[in-house]
């Protein structure tokens, strides 16, 4: 399979596919971060995670339309506004869902799975009714278009670089919030021992609600970033939910580092394979490999040692 390419070509192919893999990696990390918080920290399986992401994508789409119509002068910067709005919208919806649905089901994780699947169906149909069944695409401002030539044969798209920077920024922010802020300490305390956390005066219900909201909000930002590399339809979220869960499970549910490492492995494997095989076979092989590895090492790549 390498026969027809020269060494230089192969180098360029691997570099470009590697970069394509990095963009996929960024999107995976953004999507998986929210899930890692919700699933890893709270133990809730949120099958509607993809739909929260799509909410962010639709918010971005609506914002870009609004800026184009009313504030064309500010259009180049609309994306930052859209991201904040996407975070707020998805986070608020997440907190509402936590209050109405999830908090009744903390003791029954398999049932949260079914209930949030129901929620995802409702949201999909709501998007279809509100925005139509057709996929929508966002118009990017000029400065995000085009690509940068690193060498003669290697070029990288600018929006990809932007998504990567965004991912790095958000990952750092999440790590800071969870591991260094007072609120993050409260979240981890509740995760480790709910009763004791309550006994020392942490409002566990409030912590749950905000944690869930934060996870959904990050999904919203992921959706916002997603609009830059693909179009959005009512059922787009469902396409990614399995991948996202695999990323989180493969990385070891409670570990942020594991999530990032597994997102990196999976996205690189897939985009490199995609060049040589068809897209579907690349996906099949990657997923099969993950399932195989999980059978050998069910706790995932990075497991925290906890006493149950």
């Amino acid at each position, binding site marked *: 399979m390498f026969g027809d390419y020269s060494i230089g070509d192969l180098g360029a192919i691997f570099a470009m596919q590697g970069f394509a893999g990095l963009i996929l990696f960024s999107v995976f990390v953004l999507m998986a971060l929210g899930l890692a918080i919700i699933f890893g920290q709270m133990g809730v399986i949120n099958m509607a995670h993809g739909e929260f992401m799509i909410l962010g994508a639709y918010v971005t789409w609506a914002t870009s339309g609004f800026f184009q119509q009313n504030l064309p002068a500010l259009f180049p910067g609309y994306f930052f506004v859209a991201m904040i709005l996407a975070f707020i919208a998805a986070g608020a919806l997440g907190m509402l869902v936590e209050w109405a649905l999830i908090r009744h089901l903390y003791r029954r994780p398999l*049932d*949260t799975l079914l209930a949030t699947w129901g929620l995802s169906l409702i949201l999909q149909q709501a998007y279809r*009714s509100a925005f139509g069944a057709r996929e929508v695409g966002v118009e990017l401002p000029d400065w995000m278009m085009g690509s940068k030539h690193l060498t003669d044969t290697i070029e990288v798209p600018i929006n990809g670089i932007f998504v990567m920077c965004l991912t790095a920024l958000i990952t750092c922010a999440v790590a800071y919030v969870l591991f260094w802020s007072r609120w993050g300490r409260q979240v981890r305390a509740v995760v480790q021992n709910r009763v004791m956390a309550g006994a020392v005066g942490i409002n566990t219900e409030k912590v749950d609600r905000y944690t869930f909201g934060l996870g959904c909000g990050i999904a919203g930002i992921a959706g916002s970033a997603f609009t830059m590399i693909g179009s959005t339809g009512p059922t787009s979220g469902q396409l990614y939910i399995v991948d996202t869960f695999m990323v989180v499970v493969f990385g070891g549910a409670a570990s942020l580092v594991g999530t990032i490492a597994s997102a990196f492995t999976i996205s690189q494997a897939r985009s490199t394979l995609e060049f040589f095989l068809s897209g579907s076979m690349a996906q099949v092989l990657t*997923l099969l490999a993950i399932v195989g590895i999980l059978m050998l090492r069910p706790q995932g790549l990075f497991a925290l040692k906890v006493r149950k």
Partner: protein
Amino acid sequence: MNENARLFDRSELMALAALALLLLVILPLGLDVFRLNLVAKYLTYAFVAIGLVLCWGCGGILSLGQGVFFGLGGYCMAMFLKLEASSVANTKIQSTPGIPDFMDWNQLTQLPFFWQPFHSLTFTIVAIFAVPAIFAFIVGAALFKRQVGGVYFAIITQAIAAILTILIVGQQGYTGGINGITDLRTLKGWDIRTDQAKFILYFVEVAFLFATVVAAQFVRRSKLGRILVAMREKEDRVRFSGYSVANFKIFAFCIAAVFAAVGGALFTLEVGFMSPSFVGIVPSIEMVIYTAVGGRLSIFGAIYGTLIVNFAKTSFSESFPQLWLFGLGALFIAVVLAFPNGLAGLWRDYVQPRLDPLLLGRSAAAAKWAGRSVADGAAAE
């Protein structure tokens, strides 16, 4: 032991009789062949639902990949029927006569090796049982032996459903791709597309369904069934009592897989095609909801749940396509939040107590309610 010595207790026998009356007399007399064929299609899902009662309701193992086994059974059957339909005489206009049409379209010139044995009906029937059982055994053994359970098991089975769908869709030349295997005509020379054939197949299917009900009830009533329930409630205690928890889970998962595959094979016969849209994540989760609506602890509940959800789906999506997904989503949430035991739970709590005094006599009913066993009663909290 007194109550559990018999396979069916008195009220279950009545439920069985009522179901037989409905499926064998009322529906065939009351519906035209088209509607009856729809019922037959729904009932194939009931096989999956019964499997889930054992695996999920009793054993506490939620599999989100039952569509995989439904599909494996269905595809085995479809491969046999397709080979029969693409005899050399039927396909002489193709560039390679004698192979299925979709292979010809995809420039295959030879039947792939794994299609070869499906020329034989005996092999096909064995495969319908063996392929899903072996597959479930491998998956179950790999996961349960390492004590992967609950949520992780659900996610991994879901990934397997995704993998199989992508594989079937991607390998168009070998599997028929997204269209599936279509244009199935005869079973050993007997045309399965006529109204009369559909009528007969319906009764064959109901016979299989009752066999499945009896088999499932046998498992539940046996000591094995009690261990499954014990495992669901306190897995560690069962393990420390010296039982191999993994083996029991593997068994429950395999038997659910075989039930699903039988349903899938009958589906292919009844509906006349098989496609990846019955394999993936969405159908697999829908099959779980049939069980949840009917009652995850009740075999009969699962059958009624399947029928009711599917009837609702057909009539709603015919008249209000917009509302159907809202309705289905709300159903999921309502069942989980408000009625964890589904219709069977409602029946047991509200209808049965009023029915029993009429049917059994007052004193017998009181005795029965006093001695209600934990296995059938307590909610799956």
